[in-house]
């Protein structure tokens, strides 16, 4: 005992009666806050959530980009972010594929042709490639392939005639026929003729097998200008032949050469019945990286209406056009003005009114109202709206709906559960049954009923969400009431004469506040999820519709609508789906973490359980 000088008596002599409690009493909420703060994840979640909410409120209010009107010029732009673009990421350049090429622009050196409809200045150096793809088109832009000659219904003969060509006399003319396939030929054959002295002269011999044939043409008397005939004959009326090319040459000189598209179009029906088609043909497509922003917002020549021109000049009285000394009749403007040059002017008079239009070169970015080439942080969607603003607007809508629905659900649920739990007995039984019936209705049913009756929109959305949302809150409240109903202080209060309402709201309900708060916070992500699902299916708030809250009218796209829009262009423009998906995921995750943190803080005994 004497060796125990590690331990010393603390207050053996002290009398501890009626001593003040040292330290301050910590209230219920403060206690919960301390527990909440201890977990770093909760703080992180709370901060991220706060940032999201702030962005949702501020961005739509202060953005200068358009998110409501359809702007056809700006559709499907890639994201362009100010700093990252210097590193080549997210710099607004998109890889465009599958554009048909303009064969006239085929550059013989590089053997590349330029794509149709794109400004070649803005195709990034070295990124243009051409590739071929099989095509079903039989027009002139489709190259290669063979021409298939097929016998018609019930016909054993199909003879076609071409325009006339000049054939030299004597020897030296060689016909080359390249046949790639026969089908169902049986005993038939392919014959090539020319007209000579009003008869059909067979060139070479009848062809019955695929192959490349070379037939010398010998004209015994004189040269002739004659058409060439192709004849397919067979006892099988489904016979067909695929011909790659037919040509004739005299020594080095080519008399005629027909293949692919030419072969398809230069022969006409002369006898019999049949049909032509092209097989195995392909088209050339281009793939390249394109600077869309440059192409769109650069200088452009447009037709400027006279009224608009006058407006622009009126707004900027100090700008004076000067005549261009190099190009008389054209006017140039000072640097950095929206109009760069007026090329020409034309006027018409209708009903005594003079209407003028100008051909002008404008700085297109300024013309559209941006001070320089704009940055679309998330790109633009199918109607040219800025996705960045749209996403935050969507978030705002979802949050507003979430909060409104949660408030309604909680108020109603608490009252319902309180009454049901407090009175018990028959009242409880009936109310429970009602809850059960309403709860069992699948949400598809409520969806269908409300949409059919009222039509989709803000009100319908809210109604669908509140129909069965209050049930969870009501049952939680009811459980709490059962727990605390039998306590002595309640009995004591009742003996003192408190009426039911006082008992419910002042004594029993505050006990369950913690649980009620957590379930309400956790309800918001559930509501947002349901709302996104409903909007995705098309029954929510769409573009152009707005939420009217008394005097406040807020444009109401919701994230679900954005996701469903993005889905249509999933392959070509993934950014339309990825960005809203990420934002909604982050929102839900942080909300759930925040809610879980709150629940653990308010009620540590439930930590980790449902």
């Amino acid at each position, binding site marked *: 005992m004497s060796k125990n000088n590690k331990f010393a008596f603390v207050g053996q002599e002290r009398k501890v009666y009626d001593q003040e409690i040292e330290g301050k009493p910590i209230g219920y909420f403060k206690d919960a806050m301390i527990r909440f703060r201890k977990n770093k994840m909760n703080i992180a979640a709370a901060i991220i959530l706060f940032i999201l909410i702030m962005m949702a409120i501020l961005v739509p209010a202060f953005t200068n980009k358009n998110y409501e009107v359809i702007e056809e010029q700006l559709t499907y732009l890639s994201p362009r972010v100010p700093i990252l673009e210097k590193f080549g990421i997210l710099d607004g350049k998109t890889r465009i594929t599958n554009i048909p090429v303009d064969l006239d622009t085929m550059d013989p050196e590089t053997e590349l042709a330029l794509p149709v409809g794109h400004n070649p200045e803005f195709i990034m150096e070295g990124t243009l490639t051409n590739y071929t793809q099989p095509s079903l088109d039989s027009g002139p832009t489709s190259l290669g392939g063979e021409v298939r000659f097929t016998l018609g219904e019930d016909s054993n003969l199909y003879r076609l005639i071409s325009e006339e060509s000049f054939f030299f006399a004597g020897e030296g003319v060689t016909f080359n026929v390249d046949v790639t396939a026969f089908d169902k030929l049986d005993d038939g054959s392919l014959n090539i003729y020319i007209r000579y002295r009003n008869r059909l002269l067979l060139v070479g011999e009848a062809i019955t097998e695929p192959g490349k044939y070379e037939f010398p043409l010998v004209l015994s008397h004189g040269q002739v200008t004659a058409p060439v005939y192709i004849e397919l004959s067979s006892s099988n009326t489904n016979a067909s032949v695929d011909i790659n090319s037919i040509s004739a040459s005299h020594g080095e000189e080519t008399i005629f050469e027909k293949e692919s598209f030419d072969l398809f179009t230069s022969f006409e029906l002369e006898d019999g019945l049949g049909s032509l088609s092209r097989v195995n043909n392909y088209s050339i497509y281009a793939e390249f990286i394109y600077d869309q922003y440059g192409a769109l917002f650069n200088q452009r020549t447009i037709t400027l209406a006279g009224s608009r021109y006058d407006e622009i000049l009126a707004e900027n009285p100090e700008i004076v056009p000067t005549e261009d000394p190099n190009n008389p009749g054209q006017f140039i403007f000072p640097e950095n003005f929206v109009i760069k040059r007026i090329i020409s002017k034309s006027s018409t008079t209708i009903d005594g009114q003079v209407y003028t239009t100008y051909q002008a070169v404008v700085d297109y970015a300024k013309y559209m109202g941006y001070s320089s080439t704009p940055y679309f942080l998330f790109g633009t969607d199918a109607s040219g709206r800025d996705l960045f603003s749209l996403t935050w607007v969507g978030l705002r809508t979802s949050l507003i709906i979430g909060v409104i629905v949660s408030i309604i659900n909680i108020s109603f649920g608490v009252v319902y559960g309180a009454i049901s739990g407090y009175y018990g007995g028959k009242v409880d039984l009936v109310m429970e049954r009602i809850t*059960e*019936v309403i709860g*069992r*209705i*699948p*949400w*598809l*049913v409520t*969806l*269908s*009923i409300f*949409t*059919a*009756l009222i*039509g*989709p929109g803000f009100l319908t959305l809210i109604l669908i969400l509140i129909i069965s949302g209050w049930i969870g809150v009501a049952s939680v409240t009811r459980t709490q009431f059962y727990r605390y109903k039998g306590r002595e202080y309640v009995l004591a209060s009742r003996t003192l004469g408190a009426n039911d309402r006082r008992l419910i709201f002042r004594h029993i309900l505050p006990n369950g506040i913690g649980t009620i708060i957590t379930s309400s916070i956790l309800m918001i*992500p559930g509501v947002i*999820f349901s709302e*996104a*699902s409903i909007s*995705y*299916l*098309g*029954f929510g708030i769409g573009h152009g519709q707005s939420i009217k809250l008394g005097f406040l009218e807020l444009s109401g796209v919701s994230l679900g609508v954005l*996701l469903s829009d*993005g*889905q249509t262009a*999933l*392959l070509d423009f*993934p950014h339309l*789906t*990825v960005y809203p*998906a990420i934002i*909604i*995921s982050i929102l*839900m*995750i942080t*909300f*759930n*973490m925040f809610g*879980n943190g709150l629940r653990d803080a308010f009620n540590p005994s439930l930590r*980790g*359980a*449902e």
Partner: protein
Amino acid sequence: MLKYILVRVGWIFIILFIILSMNFMLLKLAPEYPPTEKDQRDIYYARQVSDGFMTEDVITDPAEIQALRDDHSLRDPNFYYSDEGTQFRVFKPVPIVLQYSVWLTKIVTSWDWGESTRIQVNVPAFDILKERIPVTLKLNLIALLVYIPIGFALGIVAALKSNTATDNVISFLVMVFISVPSFVLMMLMLLLFGYTLGWVPTQFPASNIQNFWLQFRGMILPVLGLSFGSIAGLTRMTRAELKEVLTSEFLLLARTKGLTKNQAVIKHGMRNSMVPLVPSIIGSFVGLLSGSVIIEQIYGIPGTGRIFIRAMAVGNYDYNVILTVTAFYTIISLFAVLLVDLSYGIVDPRIRMGAKK
């Protein structure tokens, strides 16, 4: 026990009846949407009359016809007027209560749910549904069979290795997958695996393509999309329940008697945690069904959810199909509830014995 079952089954039918009736009444209050083409519309109205939903009147008096033609305000907005040159045919809807009794008798006696008016005109609604039920059920059952073992396994691992790195990783993943909406996840996966990597087909392959491997790959994405959320929920619940059971004393007794940890946990621990888990599994099947509506829409699967959305296209409502699909979903969810109630009896012997909870 038998009495318990009978009471619950009876209760289900009552609820089904109430829901269907409410649905019918409310839909009938909404405006009519007959087929758009004239021929089909005539067939539709003739059918309505023969079914007893409407009565037909023929107006032959020329003066009355002229008056009706000139002044459209004389027409009652609830009736349908068919101008046939020399006569007018008027179709009047019968009072709703009568319509309701007609509809009910038709269902109960001849299982006739009416014909579709927009989706496939004048084809019986039940046939349209019948073609699509197998696809939906197949998808959901596979998802059910996939997610239960995975959820259990992950939950058990997380509970056993509680508070270690494995547990934290699993818990974090659970949190993520519970929060992210299933269709968002599905779209991102479609983008990644379907379009970018090309491992799975980007639309659900048609059922008459015989290539088994293609069908199999086509199933992967929707099954995953459906099951991720449920896996997360099941893992979370299993972990919580099992953790609580692991601290109880009968488990300690099992260990001291010489059972290995695996035996003790799986045989004794899990049996006890099943009580709250089984109802939630069965309940989640209904959740899977509702969730599959969206997945079907994304992936182009010809299932019941998709037909429901098509029937609900705004301005184009196809009431008979809507009612039939609604009845289908309601019946399934109510039977799921019945199974849940029954499962309480099977899993927890205390209830089976009739003891009061």
